[in-house]
Structure formats: C-alpha cells, structure tokens
C-alpha cells in the first residue's frame, strides 16, 4: 500500500473538480441555512422601520438614474439590432412588438437585476463584510440587537420591494428608448409601432417580468448579505466578498430566470392567454 505523504501527492483534475464540488455544496448549504434564519426573523419580529427606510432609499432611489440610463440604452440597442433583420423581411413595423416584449419579459428584469447586483449587491457585501471584520456585527450582538434582524431583514425587504419597481422604470425607459430610435432615427411609423406592440403584449407579460424581478431582488439580497457575513479578514477578504456577491448573485439571477421562465410558460395557457414563445 502506498504511504505517500500529502506533500508528495500530485494534484489531479479529480482533486480540483472534487474540491470545487465540495465548495459549491458547502456554499449552497450555508446560503440555505442563512436564508432560513433570515425567514424566521422576517416573519416573527417587527421590521426596523428606520433602517428599512434608509435601505429603501439607498437601494431604490439612488439607483434610479443608472437604471433609467441602462433601460433606455437597452431599448435603443434592441432597435439597432432588430431593425435591419426585420426590414429585410419587410416587417419593420413589428419592431415595437419585438423590442417591447423582449424588454418586459426578459431583458428588463434580468439586466436591471444584474446591474443592481453590481451596484447594490457588491456594496451590501462590502459594507457587511467591513462591519464583520471591524467587529461592528459583534458590537450589535453585545448591544442586544440581532444582526440578522437589524442588518439582513431590512435589506432583503428593500430589495424585494425596490428591484421590481426599478425594473418597471427600466422597462419604461427601454420602451421610450426603443420607440425613439425606431421612429425618429429608423423612420418606422409610430402608429404601426404601437399597434403591433399592443397586439403582442398583455398584462401577464408585464406581471411575469415583475414576478421575476421580485425573486431576483430577494436572491440578490440574500447572496450579498451572506457573502458579507462570511467575509474573511483584511481588504482582500472584503474585495473577495464583493466579487463573490456579484458572481453568485448573477448565477442565481440566471438560474431563477430559467426556472421561472418554465413556470410562467406553464401558467400562461391556464390564464387563457396566447404564448408569444418569447419567454
């Protein structure tokens, strides 16, 4: 039997993949326990109104300019990319339907959430991480406040409320941006643009996007706060927590988008609505 010491063992691809799997399983387990703990505090204690208002302002109001700018550019880029294709088929008046259905069902929620994961999620992870390594989280416990109740619950609630609201704003900005480029630059007739939009989009499409955004907001808040709480010491630890908050948050948003897309597609016919096949 081999008695090679650990120092002389070679690291193979199996070790690397195994280590990666263990990390993913451990992180997923930690996140699940964190989410359950947060849910207990969310449902059993009154929310700290003053902290919640601050979070709503920082997460929501301060994100409005960047969300509007991003939304408008998404709409215009959609117009730029789609116009030539549709014009080739003499379907350029359908531009409104293509742009707006993509915006409200998919691009608006996903891109707004992704952008917020970068702006808000990283900031939350860095802030909580700094609080952890400077013992501010211990100080909260010493002073009789539970960090989960005081720090995580208001951020979670604020994200669940504000990400859908910001998504609606991004959708609106995108619709305006797409309309502007299509009609004022590409010369598509405004009346036909809106008529086709109206034919293809119904309230369920918009509501589906908002439902997605609500889940994205909750997932982003949980991932970011958990990474902040798991932050290791030093500036490097805070940097890693912020990076992980974005990467894990982005993966969570895409995974949720996939599963919610399947779920919403299954619900669609039950509502007596025609699927556009653009989920």
């Amino acid at each position: 039997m081999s008695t090679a010491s650990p120092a002389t063992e070679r690291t193979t691809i199996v070790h690397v993949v195994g280590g990666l799997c263990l990390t993913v399983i451990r992180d997923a387990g930690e996140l699940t326990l964190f989410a359950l703990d947060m849910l207990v505090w969310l449902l059993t204690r009154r929310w700290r109104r003053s902290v919640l208002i601050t979070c709503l302002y920082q997460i929501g109001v301060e994100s409005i300019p960047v969300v509007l700018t991003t939304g408008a550019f998404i709409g215009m880029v959609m117009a730029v990319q789609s116009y030539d294709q549709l014009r080739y088929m003499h379907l350029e008046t359908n531009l409104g339907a293509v742009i707006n259905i993509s915006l409200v069902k998919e691009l608006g929620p996903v891109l707004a959430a992704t952008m917020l994961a970068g702006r808000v999620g990283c900031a939350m992870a860095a802030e909580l991480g700094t609080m952890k390594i400077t013992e501010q989280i211990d100080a909260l416990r010493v002073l009789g406040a539970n960090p989960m109740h005081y720090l995580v619950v208001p951020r979670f609630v604020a994200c669940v409320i504000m990400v859908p609201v910001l998504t609606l704003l991004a959708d609106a900005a995108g619709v305006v941006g797409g309309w502007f480029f299509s009609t004022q630059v590409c010369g598509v007739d405004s009346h036909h643009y809106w008529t086709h939009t109206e034919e293809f989009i119904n309230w369920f499409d918009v509501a589906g996007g908002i439902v997605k955004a609500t889940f994205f907001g909750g997932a982003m808040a949980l991932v970011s706060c958990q990474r902040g709480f798991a932050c290791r010491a030093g500036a490097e630890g805070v940097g890693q927590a912020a990076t992980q908050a974005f990467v894990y948050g982005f993966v969570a948003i895409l995974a949720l988008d996939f599963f919610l897309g399947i779920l919403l597609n299954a619900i669609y016919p039950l509502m007596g609505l025609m699927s556009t096949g653009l989920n």
Partner: protein
Amino acid sequence: MVDTPAIIEFRGVHRRFGGQHVLRDVSFTIQRGESVAIIGESGCGKSVTLKLMIGLLNPSEGAVLLDNRPMEGRSEKELTSDRLRFGYVFQQAALFDSLTVADNVAFGLRQNTRMPESQIADIVRERLREVGLPESASAKKPAELSGGMRKRVGLARALALAPEIMLYDEPTTGLDPIMSDVINELILQVRERRPITSIVVTHDMVTVGRTVDRVIMLYPQPRLGADEPQIIFDGTPAEAFTAADPRVYQFVHGQAGERLLEMATR
C-alpha cells in the same frame, strides 16, 4: 483573593478554529467586583477568552459559566439579556460607521428600553461628559474622530446600559502615551463610581499596573509542552513584576530573550 461569589468561571475550556487550537484546558474563576487583567503574547487567546465570556463564541470543549450557569445552551433571548449585563469596549472601538456619536451611545438604550428620547439624550450627554468628550462631538460620525476619541465613545456606549461587568479588549493599543493614560484613568474612574467587575485584556503593563488587582497570564498554546497548563501566572500585578518564571518575567519587562533566534530557526 476577594471572598465574594464567582461571577464568571472557565471550566476546562478548549477553543479550536479549524485545526488551530487556541485555548487548551483553561480554567479560572473571576469573583464579583474583581478587577482582572488577562495578559499574554499576541495570538495566545486573550480576545477569544473575552468573546467566550460574553457568549459571542462557544467553547469547543468545557464550559463557561455566568453566575454558575453555563452560557452554552441558553436561548437567544436569554443570551441577549445576559449580554446586556456586560459592557464591551472593542479593540478598534467597533463604532457603527453609519451612525453619529450620539446615536452610537444611544443604540443600546433605544434597542432595549422604552425610554423617551429626552431621557436617552440626557444619558448620552452624561456618558459623553464622563469620558471627557465635548457635546459638539455628539453629531460627528466615527470616521471624523481620532483613535482616542473613538475609544472613549466606545467606552461611553458600553457604559450607557449601566453594565455589571466591563470587558476591555486592548483599550490602549494604538494610542499615544498621554491618551493611553487618559483611558487608564477612565477605567479606574468607572471602577470607583460603580460596583463593577472589570476584565481588561492587554499587553500594556502600564495599564496592568494602574487598573487591576489581579493578573492572569496566558501562554500561546503551540509553545507549550504536552502537560503544561496554558495559564502560566495568576496573582497580583506586583507578583507579576517579580515572577520567577522567566516567561512571565520576560513578558512583563518586555525582554525578547532568545525569542528572535527561536523565531528565525522555527
């Protein structure tokens, strides 16, 4: 030794962080009203000992007892109410960055009492005055304060809830000699004005000489032999300064001895 009931007891406490064994079979008792310094080299487990006392950490083995009852196994509600019996002055003050000085000092009162704001404001003013901070400092954010001011705000915050036990984690670290003396004086004044139990974690022997009646010295666990206890000294400050054990003597008098050579060859 003061003949009063034990308020804190460590009974065969071990604490590990992953593969790192920081505390090994540590046992001691602190009596109500005592003033004790826990000294030792960096990494010997002094701050961990304080966090075990207040239930921020749990022992890996053994038990930490508060009023003869183990801390471990208490509900979150019980732990929260037990922690309010402590005032904790953190090493870097641990002030909440997003709050003003006044809000930091008022935090515990707002969180745990139903006092009217006017009464809270009076207590905040009183505590800030007690630690020698002007009223103009109360509107400042922690980032605008010097190191000494931050420590004093931390002390004012710890005193706001009128604790029975004060825990000081390296209260003079990083301060100039004058500000260190101010902090030492404040620790003494806190003791004189209240019937309080004080536990000071430090490696500042001036603080030890001025502020406590008893010294416990911990030795870094990796440097101990298999059967050696981790507490290598328990006595008065005067006895610590004349200790026969060279490890205690060298630490108290700040002598490296053979340590540099030892570190280079380790």
